[in-house]
């Protein structure tokens, strides 16, 4: 069964540092997403990406966040200057055309200290 792969599985960073979270979505999927889940809270939408551009973003996704699909396979989330409140599990997901379920990766646990 195809999988969405995320690296690293854990990342600890100092406040103010930049982090890049990496994802390899399913190869024939067209839509790519980042969600996050703060411990004990809901899964929250951050951004969706289609046709090499952001199609929608939430109010969480401010100027400190950016996404890229630098080649045909990777999809990255960059946080420029991390804050303590950015500590969360970050999930990448992808989906195909049509109304089908999304495939989520196993997540990157980001801890900002």
């Amino acid at each position, binding site marked *: 069964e195809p999988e969405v792969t995320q690296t690293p599985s854990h990342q600890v960073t100092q406040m103010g540092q930049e982090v890049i979270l990496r994802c390899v979505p399913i190869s024939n999927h067209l839509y790519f997403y980042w969600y996050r889940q703060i411990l004990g809270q809901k899964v929250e939408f951050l951004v969706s990406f289609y046709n090499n551009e952001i*199609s929608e973003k939430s109010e969480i996704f401010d100027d400190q966040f950016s996404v890229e699909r630098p080649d045909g396979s990777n999809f990255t989330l960059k946080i420029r200057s991390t804050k303590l409140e950015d500590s969360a*599990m970050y*999930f990448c997901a992808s989906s195909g055309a049509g*109304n089908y379920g999304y495939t989520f990766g196993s997540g990157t646990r980001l801890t900002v200290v």
Partner: protein
Amino acid sequence: SQKIEQNSEALNIQEGKTATLTCNYTNYSPAYLQWYRQDPGRGPVFLLLIRENEKEKRKERLKVTFDTTLKQSLFHITASQPADSATYLCALKASGSSNTGKLIFGQGTTLQVKP
């Protein structure tokens, strides 16, 4: 305000019984609703999708119903097994939004199936 709510209390049932989980929403007009399973420290795993014009969907031991009048979806697991123990999330995609696939998640209900 817009809300999507699941029973935050854990649901404990005996193996072999049917588990029923509830998802209620307010001030949304959903295009469809999805159910996911989430194990601790893992990403959500897609289970079922039901569209706003559908009443019921089934997949093996799973059944989802959707009542747009009551603004509620029910998720049933029949003949439950201890391996079904997990947190179950409902997620809604609003109609009228762009075709970006943004999902709004409930907080999840934890199911514990006892042998």
